[in-house]
C-alpha cells in the first residue's frame, strides 16, 4: 500500500511538474524571469544540502560498527569524537558561506526588481475592492484616461508602474507569470513595477485573504504588441456605443431605471456611479464578476439574474428583473464593445 501511494505520488508530481512549468516559473515578465532564476539557484543549493544531510544521517545510523572498539573503547571513542568535531565545524562553516552567497544573490535580484522601470513607463492606478479590481490608466490629459475593471492591457516590452491602493480591506495583486505580488493596503500606496516580455493572456488573483469572495477575485492581464495596445486604448477611450436593436435600447432604459444605475458607470449615459465596475466597454472584456465567469450571453444573464448563487456575498444584489427586462439588459450590455 505504501508502494502504491508513492507511485501515485510521483505520478501526480510528474503530471503537474513536467507537462508544463508552474506558472510562476514559466515567466512572461522581466521580474518573473529574475525571480525564477533566483528560485532555481536556491532550489539547487537546497537540494544539495538536503541530500547531504540525509546521506550523513543514514551513514550515522547504519554505518558498520566494529566489535574491536568494545575493547580499548576509550581512545577509539576519543579519536572518533575529534573526527566528528572536525566534520561538524566544517559543516557549520560551509553553512555560513552558503547563506552569505544566497543572501547576496537575493539582494541583487531585489535591486533588479526595484529598478524595473523607465522614463517611458506606463502608469496604471489599480484600486482593489471586495471583490474586484478597478483600473485607471494615468494621463496628464483627463480625456485620455482609460477606465476599466478586472482586465488590464499592457504593451509588451514597455515598463509598467502599477500604483496600488485599496478602497476597503487589504488585497494583493499577483500575476505569477509577470512578477511577484504586492499588497494593496488601505491608507497607503504601493508601486509594482513590471515589464512583460512575451505576449499572452495571464490570469492572476487576489493573494491576500479579503473576505467571503477572496476565491473569486481574479484579474486578467493581456500583454500585447504596442500597436495592438494602442488600438485597444483608443477603443476604450470612446464612449459607449449606441444600442443597435430595439431590445438593446429597451435594455438601456431598464438599466437606467433599475438598480443597475445606482452602482455602475456607462460613459455617454446618465449612469455615473463608481461603486461597481465601469461597464462602458464591458463586452470587450474576457470575463464577468472579476473573471469568475467567461463573458458570454448565457453567463451574463445568469450573473445578473442571481449574482448571489454565482458569487455568494458579492456586493452585486438580486435586482428582481422580470424575464424580458433581463433579456433586454443582457442584449444592451453585450453590445457594449
Amino acid at each position, binding site marked *: 500500500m505504501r508502494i502504491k501511494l508513492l507511485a501515485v505520488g510521483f505520478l501526480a508530481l510528474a503530471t503537474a511538474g513536467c507537462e508544463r512549468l508552474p506558472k510562476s516559473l514559466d515567466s512572461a515578465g522581466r521580474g518573473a524571469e529574475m525571480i525564477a532564476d533566483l528560485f532555481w539557484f536556491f532550489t539547487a543549493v537546497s537540494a544539495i544540502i538536503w541530500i547531504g544531510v540525509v546521506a550523513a544521517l543514514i551513514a550515522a545510523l547504519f554505518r558498520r560498527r566494529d566489535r574491536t572498539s568494545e575493547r580499548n573503547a576509550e581512545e577509539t571513542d576519543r579519536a572518533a569524537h575529534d573526527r566528528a568535531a572536525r566534520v561538524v565545524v566544517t559543516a557549520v562553516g560551509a553553512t555560513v558561506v552558503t547563506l552569505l552567497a544566497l543572501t547576496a544573490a537575493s539582494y541583487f535580484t531585489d535591486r533588479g526588481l526595484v529598478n524595473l522601470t523607465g522614463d517611458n513607463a506606463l502608469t496604471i492606478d489599480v484600486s482593489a475592492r471586495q471583490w474586484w479590481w478597478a483600473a485607471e490608466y494615468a494621463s496628464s490629459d483627463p480625456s485620455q484616461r482609460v477606465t476599466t475593471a478586472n482586465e488590464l492591457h499592457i504593451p509588451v516590452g514597455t515598463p509598467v508602474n502599477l500604483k496600488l491602493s485599496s478602497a*476597503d480591506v487589504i488585497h494583493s495583486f499577483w500575476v505569477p507569470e509577470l512578477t511577484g505580488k504586492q499588497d494593496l493596503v*488601505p491608507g497607503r500606496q504601493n508601486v509594482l513595477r513590471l515589464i512583460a516580455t512575451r505576449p499572452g493572456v495571464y490570469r492572476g488573483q487576489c493573494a491576500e485573504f479579503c473576505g*467571503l469572495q477572496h476565491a473569486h477575485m481574479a484579474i486578467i492581464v493581456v500583454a500585447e504588441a504596442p500597436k495592438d495596445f494602442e488600438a485597444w486604448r483608443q477603443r476604450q477611450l470612446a464612449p459607449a456605443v449606441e444600442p443597435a436593436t430595439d431590445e438593446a435600447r429597451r435594455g438601456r432604459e431598464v438599466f437606467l*431605471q*433599475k*438598480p443597475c*444605475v*445606482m*452602482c455602475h458607470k456607462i460613459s455617454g449615459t446618465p449612469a455615473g*456611479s463608481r*461603486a461597481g465596475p465601469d461597464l462602458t466597454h464591458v463586452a470587450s472584456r474576457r470575463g464577468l464578476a472579476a473573471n469568475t465567469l467567461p463573458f458570454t450571453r448565457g453567463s451574463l444573464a445568469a450573473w445578473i439574474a442571481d449574482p*448571489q448563487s454565482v458569487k*455568494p*456575498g*458579492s*456586493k452585486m*444584489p*438580486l*435586482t*428582481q428583473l422580470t424575464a424580458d427586462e433581463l433579456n433586454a439588459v443582457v442584449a444592451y450590455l453585450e453590445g457594449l464593445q
Partner: protein
Amino acid sequence: MKPLLIAVCCCLVVSGCKREARDVRGAPAASSNAGLIVMSTNSPGADSPVKTVNASAEQYNGNAYHISEGQRLFRWFNCSGCHANGGGGMGPALMDDKWIYGSSIENVAATIREGRPNGMPSFRGKVPEQQIWEIAAYVRALSGNQPQSATPVRSDHLNAIPHMQKPEGGEEPPSTSSKPAEPQ
C-alpha cells in the same frame, strides 16, 4: 465554571445565531409589498405614527451582517448628502430619537421605498428590496435602536459619525478605555 458556560451558551443561542447569520440573499418575502405602490398611512404630526408590520423584516433587525451592509450602502448611495452621516443636514437627523414617520424598521423601509413629502425621494425600484431593509436596519442602529452587539462602533473612514456605542454618551470614565488592558 459550568453555570458560567451554560449562561454563555444561552446568550449565544438567543442572540448569537440571529446576530451572526450571513444571509447574503436577503429575504425575498421581505419584498412582499414591493410590487404595488402602498400609500403610507403615516403622516407628520402629533398623532403617533401607525406601525406597519412585516414578519420577515425581523431577520434584518439585529443581524450584524445586514446592518453592516446597510452601513456600506448608506455611504454608496450617498445618504449622507442630506442626512450627513446621521447628524442631519437638509434632511432630518437620524441619530436622535425623534421619528417623524415611525421608528419601526417597516416604517423606515417604507420611508426609503416610497419617499416622503418635502425632500425624501422614493427609491422604489432603484434600490433592491433587501438593500432597502439593510439600510433601514442601519438607520435604526444610528439612533441606537439595534442591539449594540450587532452594531459596528465605527466605519473605517473619516468618522463624522460620533461612535454609536459611547456607554451613556458624553465623557466616559477612564475605566472603559483602560480596563481591557487589564490582562497585562
